[in-house]
């Protein structure tokens, strides 16, 4: 997210007032089963952020709003540059970005769909480093494909981010379900807060009914496939990272890696929650962006690719 901080604070103030007037209750249930003091400082801060989030015009899935029909991802692709990948098989690996539908409306920056956040610079930069870190035959350009496009089945690695407003069409649900059941691998990144997670859970439940989202333990292969990672770092967006400010985009949000597993306990979907790997890839060359976050983001990215290509 690249929401200016001043704007965010202004919004927070306005919406907090509105929320209090409207009698929005403050609950603390960040993690199921966890009992917390609702009036502790962290809970209050968290609640404030939650209220900000709730106040944003993001409809709940139950509201059943229509996806944005006017969104033309191809136009965005043309904007971004050449996306010609030929037959799709001149290269072994394509960093493929998922184009998905989302809820209508927004706060002004909706003119650029969220799937295209950091696009295509993050993709390019990640591929440059990926090609240098492991002996992979990776296409260096961007490759964005709609979830309901049959072509997506040619690219078994898929990256989607900013999924808080994701609202898949039935065609996309079917396309993603077949993709994952056939052996495709989906990486989710850069979405923050419980409500966004709930929306993702709702969407994934439509795609893979009956499969739950579970935390990925640190001894899982995805943390050890190429690089041994012993902790999950919260990777800040470029604004927070440059400032040296808080790494989180929501009050008290801790980074976590969730997964959706198949019947043989292999990861089908890896979910990077409350972290922004994409910005760390995109701004790795920025001298003001702390290298430690980019290092972690690249390690995690390489591990995810290596895991996807071997399991």
């Amino acid at each position: 997210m690249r929401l200016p901080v001043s704007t965010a604070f202004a919004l927070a103030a306005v919406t907090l007032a509105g929320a209090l007037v409207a009698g929005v209750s403050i609950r603390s249930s960040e993690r199921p089963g966890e009992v917390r003091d609702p009036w502790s400082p962290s809970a209050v801060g968290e609640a404030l952020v939650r209220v900000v989030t709730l106040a944003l015009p993001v409809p709940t899935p139950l509201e059943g709003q229509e996806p944005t029909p006017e969104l033309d991802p191809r136009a965005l692709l043309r904007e971004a540059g050449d996306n010609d990948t030929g037959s799709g098989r001149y290269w072994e690996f394509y960093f493929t970005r998922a184009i998905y539908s989302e809820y209508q409306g927004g706060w002004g920056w909706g003119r650029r769909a969220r799937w295209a956040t950091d696009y295509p610079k993050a993709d390019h930069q990640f591929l440059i480093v990926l090609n240098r870190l492991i002996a992979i035959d990776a296409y260096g350009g961007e490759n964005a494909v709609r979830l309901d496009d049959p072509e997506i089945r040619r690219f078994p690695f898929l990256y989607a981010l900013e999924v808080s407003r994701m609202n898949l069409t039935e065609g996309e649900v079917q396309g993603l379900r077949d993709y994952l059941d056939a052996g495709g691998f989906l990486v989710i990144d850069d979405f923050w807060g419980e409500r966004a997670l709930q929306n993702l859970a709702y969407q994934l439940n439509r795609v893979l009914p009956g499969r739950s989202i579970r935390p990925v333990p640190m001894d899982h292969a995805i943390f050890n496939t190429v690089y041994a990672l012993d902790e999950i770092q919260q990777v800040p967006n470029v604004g927070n990272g440059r400032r040296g400010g808080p790494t989180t985009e929501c009050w008290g949000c801790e980074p976590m890696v969730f997964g959706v597993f198949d019947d043989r306990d292999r990861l089908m979907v890896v979910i990077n929650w409350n972290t922004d790997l994409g910005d760390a890839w995109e701004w790795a060359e920025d001298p003001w962006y702390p290298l430690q976050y980019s290092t972690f983001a690249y390690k995690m990215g390489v591990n995810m690719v290596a895991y996807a290509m071997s399991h």
Partner: protein
Amino acid sequence: MEGLFEFLFKYRPVLFQEGEVVLGTTWPIGILVGGVALLGIAAVVTYGVTGGKARPVERTVLATLRLAALGVLTFALLQPTLVISSVVPQRNFVGILLDDSRSMNLPGEDGAPRRAWMEATFGPEGSELIDALSERFALRFFRFSAQTGRVDGIGELGFQGTRTDLAGALTRAHEELASVPLSGLVLVSDGAENGAQPLSEAIIPLQAASVPVYSVGLGAEALVPDIQVSRVEVPGTVMKGTAMLVDVVVTQRGLAGRTVRVLVEDGPRIVTEEEVELGADGEPTVVRIPLTLEEVGPRNLRFRIPVLDGEAVPENNARERLVDVTDQTEKILYFEGEPRWEMKFLRRAVEDDENLQVVVLQRTAPDKFQRYEVDDGEELLGGFPRTREELFRYRGLILGSVEASFFTRDQLQMLSDFVGDRGGGLLFLGGRNAFAEGGYAGTAVEDVMPFYLEEPAPDARAAFQSVSVSPTPAGQSHPVGQLGGGSWDDLPPLSTLNRVVRLKPGATALLTGTAGEEERIVLAHHRFGRGKALGLPVQDTWMWQMHADIAVDDPRHEVLWRQLLRWLVDGVPDPVSVRLGRERVEPGESVELSATVMDSAYIGLNDARVTALVTHPSGAVTEQSLAWSVEEDGEYGGSFLPREPGTHGVVVRAERAGGLIGEASTILQVGPSQEEYFDAGRRTPLLRRLAEDTGGRFYTPASVSNLPEDLRFTGAGVTLTEERDLWDMPIVLILILGLLGAEWGYRRLRGMV
């Protein structure tokens, strides 16, 4: 024809074949030639100078006829004589070998059992044949089936022998009669040979000793109507759950166009069945039966066609085959030079197969490797194996996109030895660093590949070609080509970066593909040394799993890889292996046992202590030592004599310096054989060749009356020389009268008389 010859020439042709024609006159040859010449000149001059109205042509014809008559007369005056060697009566022996096998109970040409003629001819009542033979020879009788023995009369024959060992019978009879003057051996049989010893080897001593064999063929050449299971092609050992194709060859006479069922039975259970429409009479029909065996252990499979009405030989409608179904996990090393989707989807395809363990070594960066499915932390810790012991513990090897320069020269040779010496299966996958593009031309590994390498593409990416894949005829009949019954037609095309178009001699292509106008090899294999090598120069069979045209639950990708990898390691030997000379014998029949013993680097060991423990059906265990064969490193041999019917378990243990090198096991089925009922028609060509190759003759019951006289003039045994006049042959008189009559007739015709 032979009768006409005998009428004209006084004697049967065989006498002229065995004897020599000489001129018996005592006159000096010069005088004879001179006299004949004078007569001839006189005749020519007479016809030439005589006046008259005869034309030159007429004179020439008359002179020729007269000269011919003079010539025949002269021949008769020269006293032509046939000189032949004839046996001395009662000084020579003849061995008579009587077929005592079960097939003699089958119907002969006249509908009666084949043995009926034998019993009538050689029975106690006697016969003209026996009388004629006894007149000149001392007769010695033998009966033969699986074994051969002397008998005093046909009453000792039971016609229950389960094998017809012609070679053994001839050898044994020759040996028994080696010390007496032997005029020949008379073999009375239907020729349904099914002995272990090659017949060609048995006749060499007979040829050397000039002992002719006179064969008497019994029975009809074709039994009608009849259908038989002629052959069953099934591996002796198979992994549990492996889908295989069994070829059952069915032959028939008198049933062309009929549809029959071929049943596969495992004990009382019908495993599967297949319907087949029979071809033309005498033409073999191959029935291809898909078969998967799930029950572990030795399985005695029976391939049976239900008996049809009126069949001449119902006993040949079934064949049994012993298949050892194993349940061991076969370890395959897959070395991949870079992260590739092919590796991921290959692993997923075979992960449910409990009999396959694909250990993956994947290079992720120079000198950095990822390992998957290893047994412990030590396995492949140093990267690709550097010793034969380390590499040869795998039974199969898959080589992905990894350049030849990655390997040391020793490692390249080791890869070659993995197939050639160790007998492993090696599968080459396509990729940007595989085959010619990987620099394998000129290396030891190139020799292993089943096809020739072309010039490498200067830019591998530019060599990209889409390939539409289809099975070759050989592929259609191969388990790998079956796809579990799925179709090849709707599979999406694959791609390749390696141009492969030329097979090596002896290699077989199972899959080919069309890339533009060019036909490419997609899957080929060949034997290399003790093992086999497969080449699959495409890079993305995973598209058959992921492509949008493929249903998510489509099993073809999994089936292909399971079959391919199971086939890759099928028949790969262990350091200790055992083989039997025959998988089925009769009680009391000796079994050859051979074993190969190698160390962990698959180098033959000659100083091992090798023992075979045979578990008999009664539970008794006997131990048999096997000795080094001397001819080849690591080869040991021995034999044992099973006496009980039933399944015998054989375990071979190899030890060295007190330590166990390894064990191998096999099974042996002991019981009466049904072989006598297969191909039970009279084998005239075999019996005729046997006779002709030894200087004898072939007879049927209709022509056997000539046998006693033929035996007289074989030249074998104690003989004396006989001279028989030929001047009084009817042909001489007929020729003289004919020629003179022709001359007279010609004169009448031309008005000269």
